[in-house]
């Protein structure tokens, strides 16, 4: 089967973010595969290992995003596709979904598209369901386990992770799924994989290649606008270190403070 896995390039999760002249910066922290997408990559590769076929990794982003496709190929993906166009700078979740869906359609024979549950920069979690809607495929979010993939009958059985616990359900293929951390333990790229990735050809598709019109999909005037971005307000004041003659005495003082703060 043909498996698509959609990933994003984000600043490393350990990066300290700052805003300089209205622009977001992360100093010299590296750009990485969005941490949630590592689970999507791993699940895509495991699905191929079980059912055969091939895995295509897609990323929407600037030229620098090529690096995360190399990571994807080094982990075991077969092909990397970059969706890159100047007109896509700052596009919102809905437009991102439109472009990804068009690219998945262009691949032709994809039966399942796998996403991480959200990206750690925008943090909206809106894209996977939007892609499913655009394609007319079954959306299945927050997947914690793929129990069975019945390609013959075009069904997928999964467990989803909800606030209340796990929900077991069965959906029709083709499907777009988003996965959570519980689903697997992502592998590290192998030495052979890294060598393969360094030589791999990466397809680059711009909007024209996808048959999309920049004006028609309103690229550039994203319907969700970021009016302002700023550091988070500082937490008030320095820590009060509670000291006392004994641990019991410390506990008394701390309990007094917390009750005075009305948080207990």
């Amino acid at each position, binding site marked *: 089967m043909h498996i698509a896995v959609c990933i994003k390039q984000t600043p490393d999760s350990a990066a300290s973010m700052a805003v300089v002249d209205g622009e977001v910066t992360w100093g010299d922290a590296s750009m990485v595969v969005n941490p949630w997408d590592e689970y999507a990559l791993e699940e895509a590769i495991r699905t191929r290992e079980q059912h055969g076929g091939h895995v295509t990794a897609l990323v929407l982003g600037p030229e620098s995003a090529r690096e995360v496709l190399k990571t994807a190929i080094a982990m075991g993906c077969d092909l990397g596709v970059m969706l890159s166009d100047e007109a896509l700078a700052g596009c919102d979740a809905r437009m991102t979904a439109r472009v990804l869906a068009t690219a998945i359609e262009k691949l032709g024979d994809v039966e399942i598209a796998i996403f991480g549950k959200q990206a750690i920069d925008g943090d909206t979690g809106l894209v996977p369901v939007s892609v499913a809607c655009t394609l007319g495929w079954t959306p299945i979010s927050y997947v914690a386990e793929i129990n069975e993939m019945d390609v013959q009958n075009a069904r997928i059985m999964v467990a989803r992770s909800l606030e209340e616990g796990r929900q077991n359900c069965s959906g029709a293929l083709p499907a777009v799924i988003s996965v959570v951390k519980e689903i697997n333990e992502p592998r590290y790229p192998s030495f052979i994989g890294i060598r393969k990735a360094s030589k791999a050809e990466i397809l680059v598709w711009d909007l024209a290649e996808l048959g999309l019109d920049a004006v028609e999909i309103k690229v550039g005037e994203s319907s969700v606008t970021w009016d302002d971005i700023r550091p988070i307000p500082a937490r008030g004041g320095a*820590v009060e270190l509670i000291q006392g003659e004994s641990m019991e005495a410390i506990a008394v003082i701390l309990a007094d403070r917390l009750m005075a703060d009305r*948080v207990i």
Partner: protein
Amino acid sequence: MASNVWVYIDHFQGQALPAAWETMGAAGEVAAELNTGVAALVFGHGVDDLAQQAADYGAEKVFLCDDVTLADFRVLAYGAAAAKLAVAETPEVILAPSTTRGRDLTALLGFELGVGVVADGIALKVVDGVVYVTRPVYAGKLHATVSAPGACPQIVTLRPRAFPRPEPAMGKAEVLQVEAALSEEDIGLQVTDYAASASEISLTDARIIVSGGRGVGGPDGFEPVRQLAVTLGAAIGASRAAVDAGWIPYSHQVGQTGKTVSPDLYIACGISGAIQHQAGMRTAKVIVAINKDSEAPIFKMAKYGVVADLFDAVPALTEEFKRRLGK
């Protein structure tokens, strides 16, 4: 009066999530600014009680869609019914809590109605009819003000525990029955069953969280953490280090690749406070750090700190609260 601010009442098997009522509270304020009223979307099967509760929380109108195909939340079924209704009724604003269901539903609505969705708000302001939303981005390291000025409706999800839950009062709403939009064959997804997690207090709804990290040293080390949590009626959290070590299940993880929480009180026991952990708990009102290492970054965020071994400090605190709370 028209009811042009809509709220999706998120529920599980007829039980509303606290975040649904918090969203009702925020909706009331938006509606007042827009000089309109609040309508609740109550979708499900056998959910008449929820319609009354929505009225008690301030809904003037309830769109009640009661259908067997809506017994479980399925985004295609809920979304199709909501989209059809929105096309007919043209609300100005649709709000939902940013729960798993709220996020999925709004993504689908955004697609169907051709508008962008503003996700995960923690504060709202209405200026000239536009809803400006403050939301954490980059895992909570920055705040952005986000809006969709040209969108009709403006669709916004709100983070649980970011808005106060209003006091319910006996309310009366006009209840309008709405038909489901899809038949079972059109939905493409069937729910088999649920394996609910043990009846623990949900981290995202919790007022108090007691969390353990690397310092607990092993699965047994969570015992004092658990004791304090039980005494305080708190949920139990954990850092990634403790989860990855296999000491406690992933469902307890707080942080960038775990849950984002906003309790009134967060007691971090043996947690150093790596930036990824901070991402999940920095919006807690009061943070208490208990750690042997006085240099641990968690002390920079904490209001109160105890530099001590958690195995001494946590049981002492438990005893003190048992005494005070009469347990």
